């Protein structure tokens, strides 16, 4: 496992005012608290399907998304719950998704945090196939460039996803087209069980940047202010016509790929080491108190508010209705708006259909 190489000692607060510094804390805390709540619900078998954590990676998600405006577009991945919250996703939406509720953002069609909103909050619903969102975001940002809108797009990939053909095609396309796009590699050391050195022979993933003719920056992904700063630079570079930037954020995945993963492949002590020495929230708390004069009480107040928010959302989400079977047939196409129910489900199955041929069956009446 590679360790972060960029020093963060005494970095300035990146032009952020005190309320914003606290907001960053709140988003990280909300991410973690909400995920912990999801774990509890998962253990109660109230979550349908797998549960994916971003424990230890909250700074990557939050710090990078915080660099975007509301009109900018974000394409999150499974470890970007924090980014989605920053971008306006509500805890209740997340809870309803994980519990497959009928009023969840996808009405039960898709899992976990796979949902989007391109009308207002501007994040795009991802699919599972890794890498595919890079070309899609190339197209989103191409549109902004074509229309002369000063909007930016940000797309995440994991260290593992950099191996996909779609990642390569998408970033290359966007680079040639000078799309206002930021590609963030969240290098958390593993792709499922595969360590980064089995994923690539490159010393650093950010070294791919030069091969696409775009600037590349590697940063400490567990320092939320550093993440914010490098992302903000890349976003402004994109917004002002500079095109694509590739960022590599160094972090560590402290939970398994999903909740059921035993992490048997992790060398002994590695998890404990990161938890003890490099937790992004702990590190930020230290800085907030030591450097920016935040006192513990302010943080506790935020923690309490966050817990209350998650509690309230959980109650509402649990009371949400389940999905309604026939709704499954709606909205595949704009037109037709609904697919037909198959013949054996309805009345038609009760009796042999009135297919009678006037002149009798088996007779050639031509």
């Amino acid at each position: 496992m590679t360790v972060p190489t960029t020093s963060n000692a005494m970095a300035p607060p990146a032009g952020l005012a005190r309320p914003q510094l606290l907001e960053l804390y709140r988003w990280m805390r909300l991410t973690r608290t909400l995920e912990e709540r999801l774990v509890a619900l998962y253990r109660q078998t109230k979550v349908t399907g797998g549960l994916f954590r971003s424990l230890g990676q909250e700074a990557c998600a939050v710090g990078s998304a915080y660099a975007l405006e509301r009109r900018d577009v974000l394409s999150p991945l499974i470890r970007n719950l924090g980014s989605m919250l920053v971008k306006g996703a509500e805890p209740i939406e997340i809870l309803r998704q994980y519990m497959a509720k009928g009023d969840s953002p996808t009405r039960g069609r898709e899992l976990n945090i796979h949902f989007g909103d391109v009308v207002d909050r501007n994040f795009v619903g991802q699919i599972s196939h890794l890498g595919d969102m890079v070309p899609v975001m190339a197209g989103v940002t191409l549109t902004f460039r074509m229309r002369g809108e000063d909007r930016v797009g940000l797309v995440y990939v994991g260290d593992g996803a950099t191996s996909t053909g779609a990642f390569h095609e998408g970033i290359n396309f966007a680079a040639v087209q000078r799309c206002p796009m930021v590609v963030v590699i969240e290098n958390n050391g593993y792709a499922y069980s595969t360590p980064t050195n089995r994923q690539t022979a490159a010393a650093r993933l950010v070294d791919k940047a030069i091969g696409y003719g775009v600037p590349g920056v590697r940063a400490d992904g567990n320092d939320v202010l550093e993440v914010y700063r490098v992302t903000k630079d890349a976003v402004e570079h994109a917004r002002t016509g500079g095109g694509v930037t590739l960022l590599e954020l160094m972090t560590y995945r402290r939970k398994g790929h999903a909740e059921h993963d035993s992490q048997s492949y992790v060398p002994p002590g590695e998890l404990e080491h990161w938890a003890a020495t490099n937790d992004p929230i702990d590190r930020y708390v230290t800085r907030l108190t030591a450097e920016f004069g935040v006192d513990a009480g302010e943080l506790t107040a935020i923690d309490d508010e966050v817990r209350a928010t998650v509690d309230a959302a959980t109650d509402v989400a649990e009371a949400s209705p389940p999905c309604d079977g026939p709704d499954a047939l709606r909205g595949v196409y704009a037109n037709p708006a609904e697919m037909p129910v198959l013949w054996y489900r309805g009345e038609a199955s009760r009796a042999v259909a009135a297919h009678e041929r006037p002149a009798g069956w088996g007779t050639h009446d031509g």
Partner: protein
Amino acid sequence: MPSRRMSDRPGGAPTMAEITFLEAIREGLAEEMERDPNVFCLGEDIGAFGGAFKATEGLQARFGEQRVIDTPISEAAIVGAAAGAAHYGMRPVCEMQFIDFVSCAYDMLTNYVATARYRAFLPCPIVVRGPSGGYVRGGPFHSQNPEAAFLHTPGLKIAYPATAEDAKGMIKAAIRDDDPVLFFEHKYLYRRIKGTMPPGDHIVPLGIARVAREGKDLSIITYAATVWKALEAADQLEREDGLSVEVLDLRSLLPLDDEAIVATVKKTNRVLVVHEDTVTGGIGGEITARINELCFEWLDAPVRRVAAHDVPLPYAPPLEDFVLPQASDIVRASRWLAAY
């Protein structure tokens, strides 16, 4: 039935109002780009060069580099970028240099594009078009008919016109459609087929088949280049056997026009499905199943298929001719069916 004409001489001088299938596509693209500033084209070599078959010739000069974009050789990125643009209000038209290369965007099309509306309420009105089909000695990688590979992907629409009029009317309909459309242009027809475009804003709606020839003894259900083989066979059968053959040109493969299929079956009671794709796994199976389900009682004979043999399409003329369905095959199979 629109007027149409098959010419074997690519250089044959058209009468005043006639244009080729290829020109019809180009005209359709140009009209839609003119009408709607959100329509733009992207693909390999489609800009100043006008594309490998010149379908977009002149469009960049007319609409600018922003609206006719030369891309890297990246089919997945072309389709993915189109989807992203479509989510934000654009109407992208992607060209695959040959439709054979759509296989490189298979994941993007079937997983991302087709499901976008359903899983995330994302509008995704894109068109993916390109030259398809054989009979041109293109070998296994420049002759494909991949339509059946997309048939079990709800969320996609598939169009495959056979006439110049439909080529224009359907490409315009596809661009205006709010759903993603795969648009196959048979390269054998590009310069061999001519037609007279109806005046005005000529739109041929998706999902509606066309009776290419009326008949009462036997129905041939087909699409694309084999429409012309079927018409040729039908003429011969009329002449030599006195058989009255109806030819149904499906035009749209997804959705299929069940009504038109049922209508022709009820009329003739004997059905031959003809397509250029391999017999196994081609769309003929789906059509046969629908006929079984919707009007089995009207059948006087089994539904039978004339299609390509189950091999990759070889290049040498004697091999390609052997593998692909020919008019003479349709004649033989029709006689069998008529005698059944």
